[in-house]
């Protein structure tokens, strides 16, 4: 079908080209650049990874990597939109009495893109590789509870994980960006550009840094009738205005990421549908709680009281987001705090500062960068708002390429942001004393104990209460100012069906996406 469509299309295109050469410039843009086959889906991400890009799930760290992984691989478990675990390659799972040993029943009859069957051995290979120090994947920090020798196959389609300590939320913990299942025996070298998974598409051409990457239908895919397109072309268009123009002109069918502001043109266009998802992707500030003046909890409290969160929301995402109160778990997500704890109170902030010995104000160096959306605005707004309480902020801007490596985690006061995560993962990665990415140097034994206790508490109500207590501790005592949760925004051409933006930014499912007439 696609073949017979090819010919007339290209003949027409040649004609169009000849007309253009003849000087006839008045031509529809959609016509000349429409792909030859009607079932090619053209996807554009916002973040260019260039030659750094990879198809190896162990090393993926940006949107392009995540889209590629979403096309080619699948996970045992995926989070749904409220971060509840849903089956993908696993059909079901159950813990032992204390949540330390987990048994996963795997989906049967699933084949890899090379036709080989998916079995427990692939699962064991994938997870052992991720936690192996020789692999040196950042996944090791996220999956530290997994004991590599405790992963074993009970039969071809049943896997058991024996953990170092009980984790009630284990299924969610393995639903992250690293845990895509790869076929047993593939080396990092192979996985980088030619990985084989069970996903709806297989790689046709992928050379890091060369665009577009091309993926074609996986004939062995296990979901009947899917995928619904024959081919996917993936590229990055880092410039937001260029991305919008390309979508409006029909040069791409899906853009996975858009700025939250300045979308009037797209909203007004009948050819485009904007997609967004409420997400716990947060923007804010982080202060080292072991460095003066932030080592005084009264100063930290004053900073939290002096900020006007509504203003951040308006300036950074407009209506596409929600105000946050210093916890990475939003109220609508599992274990989110129901209450709104406090309002802006400049007088109280001043009083706290005076009490802490800063009666005539405070001088702070705040580091920021254009490395991510919103970081610079956060810093400038903070400078303006903090002035009300006599806090004098000196903004130091770092080059984008340097920010996450040389400033963040190294300087005592920085603008920051985190992608949306399940509650336990967010609390553990950002706030545990032992966290690899503890950006506030906050080491609170009571908090750690609450999280560890929650992890082994099987009773849901009791567990929820523990996670709530842990979050209240962060609000009261921690060094993070979690100011807003930003929605994730993307868009498609109007004729694209089945595409949804997922609140876990790294989750992409193109298996049900189709292009209408």
């Amino acid at each position, binding site marked *: 079908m696609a073949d017979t469509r090819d010919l007339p*299309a*290209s003949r027409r*295109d*040649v004609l*169009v*080209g*000849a007309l*253009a*050469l003849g000087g006839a*410039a*008045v*031509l*529809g*843009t*959609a016509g*000349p*650049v429409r*792909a*030859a086959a009607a079932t090619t889906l053209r996807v554009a991400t916002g973040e*260019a990874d*260039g*030659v*750094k890009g990879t198809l190896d799930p162990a*090393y993926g*760290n940006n949107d392009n990597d995540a889209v590629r992984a979403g096309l080619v691989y699948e996970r045992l478990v995926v989070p749904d939109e409220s971060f509840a675990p849903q089956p993908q390659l696993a059909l079901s799972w159950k813990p032992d009495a204390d949540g330390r040993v987990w048994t996963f029943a795997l989906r049967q009859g699933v084949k890899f893109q090379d036709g080989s069957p998916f079995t427990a051995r692939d699962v064991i290979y994938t997870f052992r590789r991720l936690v192996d*120090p*020789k*692999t*040196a*994947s*950042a996944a*090791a*920090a996220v999956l530290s509870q997994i004991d590599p020798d405790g992963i074993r196959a009970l039969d071809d389609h049943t896997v058991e994980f024996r953990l170092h300590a009980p984790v009630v939320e284990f299924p969610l913990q393995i639903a992250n960006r690293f845990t895509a299942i790869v076929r047993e025996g593939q080396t990092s070298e192979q996985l*980088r550009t030619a990985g084989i998974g069970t996903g709806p598409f297989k790689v046709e051409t992928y*050379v*890091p*840094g*060369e*665009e*577009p990457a091309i993926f074609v239908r996986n004939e062995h895919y296990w979901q009947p009738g899917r995928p619904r397109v024959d081919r996917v072309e993936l*590229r990055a*268009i*880092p*410039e937001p*205005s*260029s991305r919008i*123009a*390309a979508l*409006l*002109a029909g*040069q791409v069918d899906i853009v996975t990421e858009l700025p939250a502001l300045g979308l009037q*043109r797209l909203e007004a266009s009948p050819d485009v549908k904007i997609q967004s998802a409420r997400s716990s992707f947060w923007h804010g500030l982080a202060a080292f709680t072991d460095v003066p003046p932030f080592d005084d909890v009264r100063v930290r409290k004053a900073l939290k009281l002096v900020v006007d969160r509504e203003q951040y929301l308006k300036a950074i995402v407009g209506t596409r987001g929600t105000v946050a109160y210093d916890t990475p778990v939003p109220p609508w997500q599992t274990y989110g705090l129901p209450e709104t704890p406090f309002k802006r109170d400049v007088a109280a902030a001043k009083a706290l500062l005076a009490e802490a010995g800063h009666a005539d104000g405070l001088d702070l160096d705040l580091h920021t960068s254009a490395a991510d959306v919103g970081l610079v605005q956060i810093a400038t707004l903070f400078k303006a708002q903090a002035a009300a309480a006599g806090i004098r902020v000196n903004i130091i801007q770092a080059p984008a*390429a*340097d920010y*996450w*490596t*040389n400033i*963040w985690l190294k300087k005592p006061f920085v603008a920051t942001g985190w992608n949306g995560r399940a509650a336990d993962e967010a609390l553990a990665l950002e706030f545990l004393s032992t966290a*690899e*990415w503890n950006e506030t140097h906050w080491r609170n034994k009571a908090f750690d104990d609450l999280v560890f206790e929650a992890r082994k508490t099987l009773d849901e109500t009791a567990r929820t209460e523990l996670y709530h207590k842990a979050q209240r501790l962060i609000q009261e005592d921690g060094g993070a100012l979690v100011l807003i949760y930003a929605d994730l925004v993307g868009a498609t051409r109007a004729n694209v069906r089945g595409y949804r933006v997922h609140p876990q930014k790294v989750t992409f499912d193109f298996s049900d996406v189709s292009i209408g007439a």
Partner: protein
Amino acid sequence: MAVSALRPGPVARLAARRLVFAVLSLLVVATVVFWAIELLPGDAAQRILGRDATAQALAALRERLHLADPAPMRYLHWLGGVLHGDFGTSLAANRPVLPYVGARLADTLLLAGAALAIHIPLSIGLGLVAASARRDGLVDTLLSVAVLLGMSVPEFVIGIALVAWLSTAWGWFPPLALIDQARSFGQVVLLLALPVLTLNLVMTAYVVRQTRASMIEILQSDFVRAASLRGLSRSRVLLRHALPSAVGPAVNAIALNAGWLVGGIVVVEAVFNYPGLGRLLVEAIGNHDVPLVQGAAMALAAVYVVVNLAADVATTLLNPKLRTALP
């Protein structure tokens, strides 16, 4: 006289002498680039891993990339490779540098070629028109203002404005130069239209003014006056007698523009999402990817050398005075 000028001798000697210097300057470029990147803070492992740079991951990557080796040793290793035609492996991509640079260079030359194909006749033509119009009259003034306006507005403003106007509003051209989507030559033309237009708006002024100034000077010289007095037509006087003598400075200005087109149009490449050499170079610097930076910088330098050589040869062949003065 024209026949003797085309004899390979003098021009070939000029070219050969330049090429020897070219090879030397390429090596100098690569060496300077290597040490300049070494002096930048951070290293490739940090840049590649970004926020995922755990201590363990950093250590493993540094070992795989041989970053612990002393810099002079890495430099000599690279130099040894180049002597055997091996330009090294990109640290970030873990693939050979040469195909990357080659592919991007080809795309860059395509865009630069398309831009120059319009630029050369357009800017010299406009210069001629300005020179032959009434001095400071309407045409002359309008032309000056128009080209200066193009030069003084930053190229990303021009680019984004053209996209908003000619693409999003009127739908004449595709907004981005996604050349991989072209299925025919005509589509390539359409896809390149906006970047070529943007580049021409930026580049034209200098060449027009050079052409105009030297034409005005030449038109007042004795041999042009003599030609006019002999009763030759105005167009013949302008095109056959005055222009060849006047075009020298314009050719050099065009050569400068050509060099800019190859290495300096990063912003235009970004606006139109064009896979050019400039963006590759910026990305490689951001990644601390020394071999890739060296490869891209050498390609840029090579194009500069060739373009300047071509400009010198062209000026020499065009100008009767220089032509006969060759050794």
